[in-house]
């Protein structure tokens, strides 16, 4: 059952203020992922304090990297259920977890950060892994 939107709104804003486009409907998701071109990052947001509490600041640090995905999107697991399910269908080989980060290049998953790679780690470590993935896959 989704949480009260008043509680979730700051968690959404923490990501969207980075310039990450939020996808709240199936149409939103298909509108950007169905016809992929270049590099696209999808951040699966979550209310989970023990993981998402570090994931969002980690993402913020990572997106300061000179090399980053051409487009960045976010869905909110547990809140926008249909949009999240649809987004996950674009990386269906990977077990659903939240928070998580998928990096796609021309529609193919080239990197995936699972929750187990987030929980228990700090923002700096998370950002370092994301920056390495950006450097490896997002240079034009």
């Amino acid at each position: 059952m989704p949480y009260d939107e008043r509680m979730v709104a700051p968690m959404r804003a923490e990501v969207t203020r980075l310039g990450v486009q939020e996808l709240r409907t199936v149409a939103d998701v298909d509108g950007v992922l169905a016809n992929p071109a270049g590099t696209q990052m999808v951040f699966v947001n979550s209310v989970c304090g023990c993981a998402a509490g570090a994931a969002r600041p980690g993402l913020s640090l990572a997106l300061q990297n000179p090399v980053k995905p051409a487009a960045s999107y976010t869905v909110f697991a547990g809140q926008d259920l249909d949009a999240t399910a649809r987004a996950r269908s674009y990386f269906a080989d990977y077990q659903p977890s939240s928070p998580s980060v998928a990096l796609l290049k021309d529609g193919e998953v080239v990197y995936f950060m699972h929750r187990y790679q987030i929980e228990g780690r700090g923002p700096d470590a998370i950002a370092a892994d994301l920056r390495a993935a950006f450097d490896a896959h997002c240079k034009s």
Partner: protein
Amino acid sequence: MGRFHEQNDRGLLMRDVAVHEVGAGDLEIWLEKQRKFGVAATHRTFRLASEEVVEIRRFSPP
């Protein structure tokens, strides 16, 4: 493999656990698959008696 919850005199308690069954193929290959594609949890909660615990290894990166 799963999320460590606690270990006490009742044993080891984990959440969201995937189990590599004996005879289910090479353990290292299985571990690598979990690492890449995520833990394919089949047990929401999993308790192992203390005497059955041989080793607890951290799977996530430091």
